[in-house]
């Protein structure tokens, strides 16, 4: 089992969800984060003073999957989260963490069979 953590642009959520669903991956947990990466922040002004926002809004997806789904999940995210024809700095990253165990709270099921729907 792996926990796949993807940092994506907020506007890509729907596309990524659709791409995941096509690969039978439905479950995930989403949170608001701010990312500091190579992407240049934007310049804001506040009452005349400019400042650079270096922490850009991103979404974090956490998707726990069985091993057989890892590559498909990565592929789905890559397919849907890239910007435009050649991608753009700030498209995000995917991290794959080992997952030792998983428990479905409702049924008490543990392990691989608890991960899916």
């Amino acid at each position: 089992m792996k926990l796949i953590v993807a940092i994506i642009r907020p506007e890509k959520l729907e596309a990524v969800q659709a791409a995941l669903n096509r690969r039978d991956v439905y479950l995930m947990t989403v949170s608001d984060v701010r990312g500091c990466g190579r992407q240049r922040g934007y310049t804001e002004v506040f009452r005349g003073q400019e400042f650079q926002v270096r922490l850009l809004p991103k979404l974090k997806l956490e998707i726990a999957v069985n091993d057989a789904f890892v590559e498909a999940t990565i592929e789905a995210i890559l397919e849907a989260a890239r910007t435009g024809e050649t991608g753009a700095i700030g498209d995000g990253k995917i991290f794959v963490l080992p997952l030792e165990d998983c428990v479905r709270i409702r049924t008490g099921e543990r392990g691989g069979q608890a991960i899916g729907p």
Partner: protein
Amino acid sequence: MKGYEGDYASLSWTGVPLWAKFFFQLVFAGTAATIVSGAVAERIKYKSFILFTFIMSIAVYPVVGHWIWGGGFLSPGEGHWFGKDAGMFDFAGSTVVHSVGGWAALAGVLLLGPRLGKYGPEGKVNPIPGHNLTSATIGCFVLWFGWFGFNPGSTMAADVNAIARICVTTNTAAAAATLSATVTSWILLGKPDLGMTLNGCLAGLVAITAPCAYVSVSDSIFIGLIAGALVVVAVFMFDRLRIDDPVGALSVHLVNGVWGTLAVGLFSQKELVQSGQTVSTGLLNNGLLHGGGLSQLLPQAVGILCAGVYAFAASALGWLILKYTVGIRVSAQEELEGLDLGEHGNEAYHGFVMALEPLMAPVEPRPAHVPPDGVKRYTALVQGVGADELAQAWSELCQPGPAAADPAFKELYKHVTTVRGHQFRFRGGDAHRLRSLLETVLRAQLGKPVEVVLKEDSNYAQAYAELAEAR
């Protein structure tokens, strides 16, 4: 419209047009109903609340309004309770509007019960703090401003001197109460709680509503000071009694409505009342502290009692009927999720990026395998270049800039999934085309030829497995 002076006695004080009085009374009735909303908030059914406002403005408010303002048995006059020389005075509604609203709220709160989780075992009180004190502060200021319509407007005449003095008593009481609530909470709690400050301000306004025209500016200070302290103590008291009032409406409107009405009996001064201001004010007596003995205090107390008994009983009856017909309280689940969702289907604050449409049919448990999608995957091995150099080249190719705009790169890029060491993975596309594209772009980037060996993955799942192995 004929005969309205008779039929609509409560609207007939002075020569103001009937519709103007109707409008004015309508706002008072609406206010009385609104008071209830704060106390029953966060657990009442929207439907029942709407129905209750009808009960309130048809059967509760108008009755008391008639008793006190419409020549009813509490007003002074031949054949009324206090005879023709005395009566209850409530200039702009501390009793008629505010305590009546407060009694109706109390009845509702008692029948509803506290919000889930508000009171723990062993007398534990768990505050459920307001979510936005900016909004609360705006609300308080709007009410303060509106009060300058209520109180001076109740002269029902363009009597500038009276209006000016009423403005000042109203404002002074509000300011004094704001300060005294702040100081009281500072002493009792160690910090000046903003919620208390705001409620203090409203308490002062409620308290000065009845006496605003009958008392001097200096007395209005005392009325306000007491109101501010009262509201703080009342909030504690209601929580001790486990009467859950989310916004403190009972402490503000009920407690201080009573206090303000009594204050008339303590502080009123006959000579302040301009003759002709309202039909009956000529009959006002001096208050206890201005040598009038109980002549004014007694009618006030009796009036408070009568109004309270009726308003509480009538609205309790109303709430009971609602409880056993449409029901008054939402389900526990709905209460925890929030009534914005349950009652209205809206979310009050909507900020999170989210999937706007049901992206999928309901998912059912199913065996774990990735469904094949008919699109081929290829693995390409690049030979004739070191892994580091290759990585560098690919990274540079992907940089925004002229290279990235190269059409060969673009065509290739849309099929590339991942790149590790010498291995490129593709999804879809024509195998030979991809190989030659990859060779082209890499040669151009590296400045030397490379060889690409391509392998079609016969099996989707297997390919995944292999790639995973290669890790």
